[in-house]
């Protein structure tokens, strides 16, 4: 059987499983639809959060991205894991005790204001929409790379699958498919990593091979010899200030992302909310501690197989010609000496490696069977589909639950709300698919948007709602609006070339912080404005103080009232 044949078979098998689970977990009420009936076990919720969290980009591009950033790649490693500590300690248990369906639910109730609810709902839709655009694209790219179908066709197939289990099963269908998707993607990621680690270091555990071998040091020295940056040296690619700000912005942003937060409503009690955050991070850490190792090992291996080797000999390696055809690998003997050499100067550099190839080529480089290569394709699809479905539900619930039911039609029946919820998911799938086929020019910038906005708007409002009893409606609304506006304007000014098509960026940085890290400043502004405004306006009503006291304790307290 050919690689394509095996890949197709494996992808079809996994899709059949996802569809079966969608059918099995179909739901009939809003609680099951929005929060899976609040009966997901902590470990399963952890796996679902992990699958939701790790997108096609984490799976395919992150190891490569880190291998080009060297030390500074830590912005993604620490940034996209550290937020879970904030979630577990500061938000998740209390939101679970509050026990509704969405993030705007909490903000609207805690700040006794439908205005706050609407602002939070719009922020949720905007954050999730910017985030989902890249996911559908990821589905299309995996399809086109492994099965040679058009990106648009790939996106359509992905849309159909996601629409099926998300519309039918809501959060319940999404959660259980994500549990399966997690195992598909992590196996597909770990096997090639273990194989390349065994090949290079004799130790099959990548994290140990990393620490106990010289590969990282050798790569660092090799890069210096070739005139590239010193791999193990900090701040070669980004300033210390930016590394700090971006890492912190991604951490706070993670803790403020609505599609992650709502997962903590789906477990059965406060205790499970705390534990499932731990399970989520351990599942995520498996990939996040492996990725930097693959980055180093694969890059070392690639440079070693190419540098100063005869170009004809290199081309005879079977996987080289395959990836050269896709354009992800470009070999060009510019000085005509018959051998390849690396250089930091683009005019003399003879090997161009696309960052995605670091993960995609690993199974072939490590001489693994065709089955594993096919598994990586299925893993990439699982990563893209699971992330997309979680985001779609977050958007749908913000519109159908918060805007339609809580604000415009409080008298809507259970049945009507469920119908609206299903339609909203369907609509969200269409919108996401459209962005997947026709990505907006600034698609690469959207991650900065999503994290920056979540950090500057939702995180401070939720945090203060729990830990500051005196925080009131005026403080929260002004805080959210000022943090949001500042961050939005700053990102637009710093990315004006991509967004408005200006010739140069209108603003390079703010106090040395670039667009990716600006959410930190937005969050600080939000905190300060909230504090100042709340202390100069009327304290929140008595029943709100009671509510805050109540969410701080797991036990139901208001029975005696």
């Amino acid at each position, binding site marked *: 059987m050919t690689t394509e044949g095996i890949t197709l078979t494996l992808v079809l098998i996994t899709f059949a499983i996802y569809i079966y689970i969608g059918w099995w977990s179909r739901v009939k009420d809003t*609680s*099951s639809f929005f929060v899976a009936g609040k009966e997901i076990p902590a470990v399963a919720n952890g796996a679902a959060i992990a699958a939701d969290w790790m997108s096609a980009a984490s799976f395919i591009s992150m190891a490569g991205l880190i291998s080009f950033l060297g030390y500074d790649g*830590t912005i993604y490693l*620490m940034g996209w894991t550290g937020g879970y500590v904030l979630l577990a*300690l500061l938000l998740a248990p209390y939101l679970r005790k509050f026990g509704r369906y969405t993030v705007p639910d909490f903000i609207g109730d805690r700040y006794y204001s439908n205005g706050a609810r609407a602002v939070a709902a719009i922020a949720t839709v905007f954050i999730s929409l910017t985030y989902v655009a890249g996911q559908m694209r990821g589905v299309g790219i995996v399809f086109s790379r492994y099965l040679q179908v058009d990106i648009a066709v790939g996106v359509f197939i992905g849309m159909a699958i996601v629409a099926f289990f998300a519309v039918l099963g809501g959060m319940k269908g999404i959660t259980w498919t994500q549990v399966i998707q997690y195992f598909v993607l992590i196996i597909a990621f770990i096997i090639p990593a273990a194989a390349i680690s065994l090949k290079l270091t004799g130790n099959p555990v990548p994290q140990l091979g*990393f620490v106990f071998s010289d590969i990282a040091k050798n790569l660092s020295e090799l890069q210096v010899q070739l005139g590239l940056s010193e791999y193990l040296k900090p701040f070669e690619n980004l300033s210390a200030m930016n590394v700090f700000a971006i890492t912190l912005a991604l951490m706070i942003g993670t803790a403020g992302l609505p599609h992650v937060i709502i997962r903590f409503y789906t477990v059965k009690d406060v205790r499970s909310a705390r534990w499932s955050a*731990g399970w989520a991070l351990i599942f995520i850490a498996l990939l996040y501690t492996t990725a930097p190792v693959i980055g180093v090992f694969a890059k070392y291996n690639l440079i070693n197989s190419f540098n100063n080797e005869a170009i004809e000999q290199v081309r005879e390696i079977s996987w080289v010609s395959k990836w050269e055809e896709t354009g992800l690998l470009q070999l060009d003997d510019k000085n005509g000496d018959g051998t390849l050499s690396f250089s930091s100067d683009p005019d003399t550099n003879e090997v161009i490696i696309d960052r995605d190839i670091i993960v995609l080529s690993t199974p072939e480089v490590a001489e693994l069977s065709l089955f594993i290569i096919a598994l990586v394709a299925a893993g990439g699809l699982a990563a893209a589909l699971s992330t997309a479905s979680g985001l779609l539900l977050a958007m749908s619930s913000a519109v159908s639950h918060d805007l339609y039911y809580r604000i415009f039609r409080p008298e809507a029946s259970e049945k009507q709300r469920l119908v609206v919820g299903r339609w909203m998911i369907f609509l969200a799938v269409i919108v996401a698919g459209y962005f997947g086929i026709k990505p907006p020019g600034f698609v690469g910038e959207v991650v900065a948007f999503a994290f920056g906005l979540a950090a500057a708007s939702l995180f401070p409002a939720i945090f203060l709602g729990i830990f500051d009893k005196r925080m009131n409606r005026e403080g929260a609304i002004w805080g959210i609006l000022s943090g949001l506006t500042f961050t939005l304007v700053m990102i637009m000014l710093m990315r004006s070339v991509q967004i408005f098509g200006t010739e140069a960026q209108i603003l390079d940085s703010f106090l040395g912080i670039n667009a990716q890290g600006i959410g930190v400043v937005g969050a600080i502004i939000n905190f300060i404005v909230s504090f100042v405004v709340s202390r100069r306006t009327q304290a929140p009503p008595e029943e709100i103080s009671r509510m805050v*006291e109540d969410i701080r304790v797991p036990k*139901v307290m208001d029975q005696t009232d």
Partner: protein
Amino acid sequence: MNVRQELSEKQKEYWKKNLRLIIGLLVIWFLVSLFAGIIMAKPFSNIPFFNLPLSFWFAQQGSIIFFVILIFYYARKMDQLDEQYDVKEVILANKSGTEEDDS
């Protein structure tokens, strides 16, 4: 009235202990990530952690491992605290799938 006051005194103490635990763990969170991996990136580069520089290991491996430990430690400690202050959540037997706030 007396019962309520007693309850709230106990609750206050529970909350204070929780806050102390959170602050302690967040200090460690900061030390193993932003401090060891970024602020001390250069000085810690010269300290080896087996075959890697210490700051590099914290930045790309150690911080993440510590994050996992921190969350599980918190979950375990809070289980004990819930037990000690008798504030464990009681799942109501009458739990239907429909939403409570309709009534």
